[in-house]
């Protein structure tokens, strides 16, 4: 047992060493591990605008098959001090015609919200995002119109995706060109 009373008689005399500055937080140490061990497929790229800031970065996904082949989609990641108890905040910065991503860039991916677990990593999220482009899921729509088209007319959906990526209108929404 620690006998604080006897020990603390000795304290209080400023003999304490120099300030080393606060140590890196557990969240910071954990994200460093996540980042150092990113193991991404060649279709995904991660970019750090400021290499000293490992908590804010971009992930670029450029699918090489299926509907979104040839497109280039940028996601912003914001990791908070609550990590990994809380998931990072992820937004899609590229306007995309996709059943699970709305026009404001909100992404409906289960592990970003209700199914997040601290054992998951940044790598798992990037794989999750990549999967959304390979298998858009019309059952859980965020962009309802796109989801309905995918469900009723796959051919039209494919055309709409291609058109949006070249830059053009789908209905009355204009999509910027996002081809590589």
């Amino acid at each position, binding site marked *: *047992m*620690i*006998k*604080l*009373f*006897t*020990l*603390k*008689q*000795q304290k*209080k005399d400023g003999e*304490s*060493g120099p*300030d*080393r*500055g*606060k*140590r*890196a*937080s*557990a*969240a*910071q*140490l*954990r994200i*460093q*591990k996540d*980042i*150092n*061990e*990113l193991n991404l497929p060649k279709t995904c*790229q*991660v*970019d*750090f605008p400021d*290499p*000293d*800031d*490992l908590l804010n970065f971009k992930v670029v996904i450029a699918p090489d098959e299926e509907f979104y082949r040839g497109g280039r989609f940028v996601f912003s990641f914001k990791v*908070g*001090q*609550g990590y990994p*108890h*809380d998931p990072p905040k992820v937004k899609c910065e590229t306007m995309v015609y996709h059943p*699970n991503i*709305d026009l*404001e860039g*909100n*992404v*409906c991916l289960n592990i*970003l*919200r*209700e199914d*997040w*677990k*601290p054992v998951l990593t940044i790598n798992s999220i990037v794989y999750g995002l990549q999967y959304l482009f390979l298998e858009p899921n019309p059952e*859980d*729509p*965020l962009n*309802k119109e796109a989801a309905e088209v995918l469900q009723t007319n796959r051919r039209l959906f494919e055309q709409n995706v291609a058109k949006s990526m070249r830059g053009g209108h789908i209905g009355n929404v204009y999509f910027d060109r996002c081809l590589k």
Partner: protein
Amino acid sequence: METEWPGRWDHLQKIVERGGPFAHPDFDPSPEILSFLKETCKILVIGAGGLGCELLKDLAFMGFSDIHVIDMDTIDVSNLNRQFLFRAKDVGKAKADCAAAFINARVPGCRVTPHYAKIQDFDESFYRDFHIVVCGLDSIIARRWINGMLISLLRYEDGELDQTSLIPMVDGGTEGFKGNARVILPSLTACVECTLGFYPPQINFPLCTIAHTPRLPEHCIEFVRILLWPKEEPFGAGVSIDGDDPKHIQWILEKSQERANEYNISGITYRLTQGVVKRIMPAVASTNAVIAAACATEVFKIATSCCLSLNNYMNFNDTNGVYTYTFEAERLEDCLACSNKPQAMNFSEADKLQDVLTYLQENSTLQMKTPGITTSVGGKNKTLYMQTVKSIEAKTRENLKLSLKELGLEDGQELYVADVTTPNTLTFQLRLATTMDNS
């Protein structure tokens, strides 16, 4: 003001000035213990809310007279039912200031020093001065932060912990009729980070449910909070939601109501809206009283050494009758916070970062593959080198050619190294010989 009167400390003297069947076997009764408690022992209370008010009252009456309290919040009218150091006239004022003023006026001889601030506003030199830290917080992030701070204050001599650098942390938490109290001896018993899994995950609804298939009034409120607010920015661009601003809540309430009507959902009220937006947990005054009393007792036990401390985690639940259970939370062998004892690493100022990298890869006990190295300068992260991420590698490659001195690294500086060969980021402490010593 009269601060001493006959019999004032009778009850405490009975405990600290004589032994007894329940006293700790090594306990050494003496009158000095009481004077230590009254004159020397410096306590930090974090949070002046539901638990904080109880803690301050308990500790002050127990004889502790050098108490500091930190709270970043102001008093809301809804606090008054249980945060009994505050009155209606105090609404809008800083909790820390009002709580301190109340105790100082009410308990003769007690000096409570308030800090209307965030815990992150203070550094090591502030925290190092306390004997014991006791927390009544409602945030996991704040708990992790103070836990990390107390661990970073630990000092080692020849690999042995210098026990005078250890500051025990007593932590209480409540939610409705449930609560817990625990004692953390940093690096000796389980810390906040070791038991992070104890905290329940925040309840988040699937985004697609919120967007298209709401079934609950909460779904409608979350729709407005997450999707509608950023789109409409009703109070100007970039203005985020202030859960204490009635105009904000009113707007969210009205929009949620519209949405609820659309989907035939009922039950949207102002109270529910604010509850969802601010993620308000129900608070029960009696639970706070019980948990704070348990925490204050632990502070007393640690300060006087009269009894063994709680070992080390107590759960309390009075939903049906009263249930309590105490168990020993175990340390996590690879805890990122408390098992990450810095390992020494010797270099000279003239050595290059490349030499550190080579050392990490070639040292026989480390044998790392692709170590990523960072450090912390003035509390901010600095990435020294990371080869696994192309964009970082390109921007940090030049560092390899720089000497440790040129990189601004100092003797005693901590380096954080992540590598596939270890489950966690490791901490190294740089021992730097000056070039002169070396020649």
